[in-house]
């Protein structure tokens, strides 16, 4: 039995799991069956995928489904294995988390039947080896995640979120459909092998690239196609948000890599410029928007947009180096991108689990209503802190490694030939650096407002720590984040067959380096040792704590309490989400958000309260989406009249259409 058969069996099992769940009805058994089954199946599939990745296995299978002259083809190669690891790891942890978290679900029958098919669809997208199966799995993934995002459809704004998501998903699928149609050509060769065997002309390839950016980019959250993420991700239950943000966006990255690196053929240098600029813009816009949010899950969704930007910068660099025939550098950039995919799936799932824990523990996720949770939920706080450190790219956790590798690839850019790239890459590097710094500020805000300070509401004051399953899932991911940060060499070596297959080069093997150091190019140039940083951080922090404990005076002193600049005992005098973001909004707001602030102070002697008003606008929505929505509404209202014509007018329309067509025929025939 090949690993592919096992994986297809796992996906099939996940697809069929809703049937017994539905038969069990509303009892708690359905939840155990779904999430327990999904945990087990995903863990098994994870093992199989990891084994294939390590062994570098390639196997194919064809099922007699789908289009009659193609069948449904599936293929397991290193790229698919790598992304399957991401999908199944995320799936296993999300299912484990949901074993506890799912208990708070008010309507489990709106979540359970769609959960496992969603997981199965993501696996099938990665395994598919013809355009038809790919698109069917892709659409199943979209529809299942839409149903999950609509689970709490009675809450205000969730239906709108679902509508926007469905529209964007349809748009993306249409773009991918056209892309595959272009690649398959008039002969209808939809199998990936056949597409690869006939590389398209440069014009077709460029068009396919544009369509892939639209199709995969809208699912991944590339600016300006990201509008649905901050709406739909918070709407879903938290374990599903974790999957959508941590895993589904990665499946979209997979689609991009598969089409652009594998199917389309040799890239042109300007492709890289386009992808790089899009990635840089996405990173900066995403993190700036994230900083302005009050809702914890919306903040995380915007942060996903930022991280997708980082991944696409890595992919753009890989395209640039590949076009310049520099396989080593291309291997480095692609490894950085794939490593960031893996890392982001870990810490974004972790952070979404944390936000779900906060929501179930304190009942809120508006940061202005939280605060001081570290005392009530210490383990959740620790996990969220670890996730925040990782996503802020602080060593020794894993986020640092992939962003550092991306910067290493950027530093190789002077060797690139075209001037457009020579200029674009450093500019994008600067944007990336800005995004990284702002991301740290963003997560200081997320962690600080939620877990530190004093509780802002009664609900936050009486929050409870979450159940064992949820904590186990979060702490498991913390361990993985730390492990991937300290032992990056192992992950990098595991990704080597993927990069070799796609860009013809790989990073130097890291296994032989002493003390778990990683060396991207040459030791004389740069190296990083996560273990050393970990040991140093632990030792210095420990010594500091010890020194303060031992050497500081233990004499009791009486002094006025330091009031942190907040002499009023009310918790409302603490930082709020908006006041924390104020300095950054002052700097960037005028351009990015068209932000306006207005202060009204009443005249002396007037007893009216002073008012402060700050308005942000979403310029992308206003300039891009609102006109489209307006045009559609306008056209629909005009066409609406067609519903109320007289019978003779309808007949007349038919008659006119016929006569017009005949006239055309007569004139041109």
């Amino acid at each position, binding site marked *: 039995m090949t690993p592919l058969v096992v994986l297809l069996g796992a996906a099939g099992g996940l697809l069929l799991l809703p049937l017994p769940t539905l038969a069990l009805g509303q009892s708690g058994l359905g939840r155990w069956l779904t999430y327990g089954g999904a945990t087990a199946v995903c863990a098994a599939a994870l093992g199989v995928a990891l084994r294939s990745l390590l062994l570098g296995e390639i196997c194919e299978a064809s099922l007699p489904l789908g289009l009659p002259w193609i069948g449904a083809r599936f293929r397991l190669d290193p790229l698919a294995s790598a992304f399957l690891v991401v999908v199944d790891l995320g799936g296993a942890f999300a299912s484990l988390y949901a074993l506890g978290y799912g208990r708070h679900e008010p309507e489990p029958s709106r979540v359970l039947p769609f959960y496992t098919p969603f997981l199965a669809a993501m696996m099938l997208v990665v395994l598919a080896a013809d355009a038809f199966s790919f698109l069917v799995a892709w659409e199943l993934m979209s529809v299942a995640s839409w149903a999950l995002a609509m689970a709490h459809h009675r809450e205000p704004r969730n239906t709108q979120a679902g509508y926007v998501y469905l529209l964007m998903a349809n748009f993306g699928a249409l773009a991918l459909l056209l892309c595959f149609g272009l690649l398959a050509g008039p002969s209808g060769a939809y199998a990936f092998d056949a597409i690869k065997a006939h590389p398209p002309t440069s014009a077709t390839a460029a068009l396919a690239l544009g369509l892939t950016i639209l199709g995969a980019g809208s699912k991944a959250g590339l600016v300006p196609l990201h509008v649905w993420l901050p709406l739909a991700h918070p709407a879903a239950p938290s374990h599903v948000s974790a999957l959508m943000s941590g895993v589904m966006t990665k499946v979209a990255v997979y689609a991009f890599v598969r089409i652009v690196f594998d199917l389309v053929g040799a890239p042109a240098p300007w492709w890289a410029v386009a992808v790089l600029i899009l990635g840089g813009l996405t990173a900066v816009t995403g993190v700036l928007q994230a900083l302005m949010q009050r809702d914890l899950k919306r903040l995380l969704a915007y942060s996903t947009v930022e991280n997708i930007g980082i991944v696409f910068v890595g992919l753009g660099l890989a395209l640039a180096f590949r076009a310049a025939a520099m396989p080593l550098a291309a291997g480095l950039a692609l490894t950085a991108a794939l490593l960031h995919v893996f890392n982001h799936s870990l810490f974004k799932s972790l952070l979404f689990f944390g936000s779900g824990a906060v929501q179930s523990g304190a009942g809120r996720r508006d940061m202005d209503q939280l605060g001081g949770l570290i005392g009530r939920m210490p383990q959740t706080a620790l996990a969220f802190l670890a996730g925040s450190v990782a996503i802020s790219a602080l060593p020794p956790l894993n986020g640092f490694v992939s962003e550092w590798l991306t910067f290493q690839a950027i530093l190789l850019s002077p060797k690139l030939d075209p001037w457009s790239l020579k200029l674009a890459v450093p500019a994008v590097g600067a944007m990336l650096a800005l995004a990284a710094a702002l991301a740290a500020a963003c997560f200081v805000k997320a962690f600080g407002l939620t877990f530190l300070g004093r509780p802002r509401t009664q609900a936050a004051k009486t929050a409870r720590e979450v159940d064992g399953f949820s904590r186990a899932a979060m702490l498991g991911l913390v361990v993985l984040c730390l492990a991937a940060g300290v032992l990056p060499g192992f992950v990098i070596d595991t990704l080597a067959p993927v990069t070799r297959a796609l860009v013809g080069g790989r990073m130097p093997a890291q296994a032989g380096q002493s003390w778990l150091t990683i060396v991207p190019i040459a030791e004389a140039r740069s190296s990083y040792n996560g273990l050393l940083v970990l040991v140093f951080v632990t030792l210095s922090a420990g010594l500091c704590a010890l020194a303060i404990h031992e050497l500081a005076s233990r004499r009791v002193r009486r002094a006025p309490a330091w009031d942190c600049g907040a002499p009023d005992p009310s918790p409302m005098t603490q930082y709020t989400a908006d006041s924390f973001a104020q300095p950054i909004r002052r700097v960037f707001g005028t351009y990015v958000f068209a932000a306006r602030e207005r202060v009204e102070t009443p005249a002396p002697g007037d007893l009216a309260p002073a008012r402060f008003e700050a308005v942000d606008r979403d310029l992308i929505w206003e300039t891009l989406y609102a006109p489209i929505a307006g045009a559609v509404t306008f056209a629909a209202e005009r066409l609406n009249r067609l519903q109320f014509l007289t019978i003779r007018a309808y007949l007349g329309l038919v*008659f006119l259409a016929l006569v017009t067509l005949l006239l055309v025929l007569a004139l041109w025939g």
Partner: protein
Amino acid sequence: MTGLSFDIAHLLAGSLVLISLLMLYQDRLTALINVFAAQAVALALSVAWQAHAQGAPHLYVTAFLALALKAIIIPVALQRIIKRLGIHRELDQAVGIGPAMLAGVALVGLALVVMLGVAPEADRIAREDLAFALSVVLLGLLMMITRRNAVGLVVGFMSLENGLVLAATGARGMPLVVEISVAFSVLIAFIVIGVFLFRIRERFETVDVAALDRFRGERA
């Protein structure tokens, strides 16, 4: 098919077009139905001649069906309906006769230009037959939009159907199944629309289709 046989086929098909134009000219329902019956007779003759000329005996069945249904049963029934509804004296034209006739002549011209231009190398009889058939179809449609009365719509629709039968029989080797189904569809349309007429009558006390529009809350 040459010589006399071709000329007769041509004459009969052309007479269908002529009768279609005559139908456009009628502004009273009884007269309209009578002219429709005449067109059905012409259709039956034309189909019978095609059956003779092509040596295709199954076309006689079609000719008989056309004669029995469209020339006798349906006109008689329609006459009874309009008598029972008391609308046999009503005027029924939404568009003036002059413009309607001009439009009709233009349509016949269009049909000829299209058909003769599209397939110059095709069989002459089939081509010209199709040109006549297309004219009849177009004139039927024109009649449907120039009539105000539901009965006028029905007659226009069946005249259109005549054009379709003419086209079907002009082409060699058309299987009988199609013609029977066409005939039945006409019958069914007639029954449905007949029921529909009575329903309109019950509800609105008139068969003027404008009443339907008023019922839907629209301006007429």
